[in-house]
């Protein structure tokens, strides 16, 4: 296996650097301290990687067996258009997550956790860079009226609230969000990247393996601290409680499920050879994997809480507790539970259904919002995102809008770059080298 590394043309590379200086100001700290925290690991490099020697034939869909496309202009407009949308959405998520993580990065209790998140953020920057590389390295003019340069400008101009997918429009409230987000939302990333490894567009397929290698570390950045937190919670520590963690799962898991797209869709991607699985199938795999992570967390908790139990006794005790028994003072409420797939959804098949975390069905809005208030983090309930959902839920129940209409009003469907980037006074992509004073201007944007 070999990878080829490239950088973007100068002005675009510089635009990303300017963006990094604004949203990832700890980058230099990471670089300066790399050897201390990640001894002997390959140094971080802001560049695009392409894996060499991947499968050259289309792996699924109607053109299965034919050579993969190496240029966008060789693809029929439908395929190219679909792909372009996916690249832009992917870029939006990569840059968007950095804007979220930065808010609470400084609040970590442990240095290692913080440095892992910081490294992960730098790698997300590289992922965004990788997607810009796909936009700029090819000619998309037959499927887009916007120039590649303006597409880059649009993506770099997005902020929390104007990103393509809902999960990236929600602010973090504490370091618990940094960690749970890595475990749940980056996990969606892993599934999506793994699917796109088969992409009929070779540059996309070649971009995936290096990203996936980095993603494996991002998931560990989420799961390892959570395992430590549940242990501490079991030992009576007061930092991150099981309830606090549960509420964070309730906040993020529904957004993760929605990132797979509508449960009824995804056939087009399979037919066009862009992904090997429909939405529902991929979403099921994701949900199951989240369930496994959660069971392991419960086991870790239980064994710390009842350390005298042997391994087999602990396995049996966990099952009994989950069935409702109280074992040595530990009841069901002490553990974590995977929220129902239909809980708190605003897109897809169960959008705006009033289903509780454990699958309970609610008939009335007041009772459901009460349930949400008991199951979501308090800090999150003060957000515009939550308020927007509740407003729409009331409208759906009042018959003012259908669930389908409400879904399209949710921030999740806000269009990429709703306003013309040319109208902005600050541009990320500039033709001449920027003066140092102009570097500071974007700081006012978020």
């Amino acid at each position, binding site marked *: 296996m070999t990878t080829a590394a490239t950088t973007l043309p100068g002005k675009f590379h510089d635009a990303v650097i300017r963006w990094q200086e604004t949203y990832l100001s700890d980058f230099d700290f990471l670089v300066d301290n790399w050897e201390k925290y990640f001894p002997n690991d390959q140094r971080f490099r802001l560049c695009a990687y392409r894996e060499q020697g991947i499968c050259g034939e289309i792996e699924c869909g109607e053109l299965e067996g034919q050579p993969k496309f190496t240029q966008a202009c060789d693809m029929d407009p439908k395929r190219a258009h679909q792909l372009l949308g996916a690249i832009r959405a992917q870029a939006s998520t990569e840059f968007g997550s950095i804007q979220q993580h930065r808010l609470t990065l400084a609040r970590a209790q442990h240095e290692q956790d913080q440095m892992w998140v910081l490294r992960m953020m730098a790698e997300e920057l590289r992922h965004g860079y990788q997607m810009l590389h796909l936009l700029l390295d090819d000619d998309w003019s037959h499927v887009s009226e916007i120039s590649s340069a303006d597409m880059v400008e649009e993506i770099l101009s997005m902020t929390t609230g104007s990103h393509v997918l809902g999960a990236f429009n929600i602010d973090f409230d504490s370091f618990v969000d940094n960690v749970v987000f890595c475990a749940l939302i980056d996990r969606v990333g892993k599934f999506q990247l793994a699917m796109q490894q088969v992409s009929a567009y070779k540059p996309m397929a070649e971009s995936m393996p290096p990203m996936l290698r980095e993603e*494996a570390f991002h998931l560990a950045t989420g799961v390892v601290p959570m395992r430590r937190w549940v242990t501490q919670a079991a030992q009576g520590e007061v930092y991150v409680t099981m309830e606090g963690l549960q509420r964070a799962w309730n906040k993020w898991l529904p957004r993760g499920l929605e990132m797979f797209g509508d449960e009824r869709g995804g056939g087009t991607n399979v037919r066009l050879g862009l992904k090997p699985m429909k939405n529902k199938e991929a979403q099921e795999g994701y949900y199951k*994997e989240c369930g496994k992570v959660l069971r392991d967390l419960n086991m870790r908790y239980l064994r710390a809480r009842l350390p005298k139990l042997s391994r087999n006794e602990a396995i049996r005790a966990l099952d009994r507790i989950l069935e409702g028994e109280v074992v040595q003072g530990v009841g069901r409420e002490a553990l974590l539970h995977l929220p129902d797939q239909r809980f708190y959804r605003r897109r897809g098949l169960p959008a705006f259904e009033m289903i509780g975390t454990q699958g309970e069905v609610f008939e009335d809005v007041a009772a459901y919002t009460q349930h949400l208030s008991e199951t979501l983090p308090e800090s999150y309930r003060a957000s515009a995102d939550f308020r927007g959902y509740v407003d729409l839920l009331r409208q759906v129940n009042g018959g003012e809008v259908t669930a389908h209409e409400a879904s399209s009003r949710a921030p999740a469907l806000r269009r990429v770059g709703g306003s013309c980037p040319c109208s902005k006074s600050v541009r990320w992509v500039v033709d001449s080298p920027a003066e140092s004073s102009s570097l500071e201007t974007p700081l006012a944007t978020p």
Partner: protein
Amino acid sequence: MPDLDEDILIRPLSEVDIGDIVEIDEKQGGIYRPEVWEQRVGYYLRRDPEISVVASLEDRVIGFMLGEVRSGEFGLEESTGWIEVLGVDPEFRGQSIGRRLGEQILERIKNRGATTVRTLVDAGQEDLSGFFLALGFEPAPLKPYVRTL
């Protein structure tokens, strides 16, 4: 009883495997040490998640082999693969799972450009030396020394 050969999947290590690896380790060594495996799995994922492999059967990990490629150690200038920790669930031993893990990790190490693979086995661990000999390893002239401080 499922047909093991077909149903076992050898795949790269992931953070989801920590819990199962902790169990295998506890079954083989009798000690529950989750922190050790959280650190180790975190380490190998950070280094290169495509080298280390696990054997999974119906979504449960029943064997693992963790390693990496390094260079410049012990005066070994060329990049060298190291197999550092491994284990097969005692219930599943003797069914070629270790061999399959070994073959996969060797191939992955080779793909990274290394031409040698090394491992260290405690002289008392006959099973491990037998296993590595069966995989084609030979005793190396490099002799380890140690002293307590």
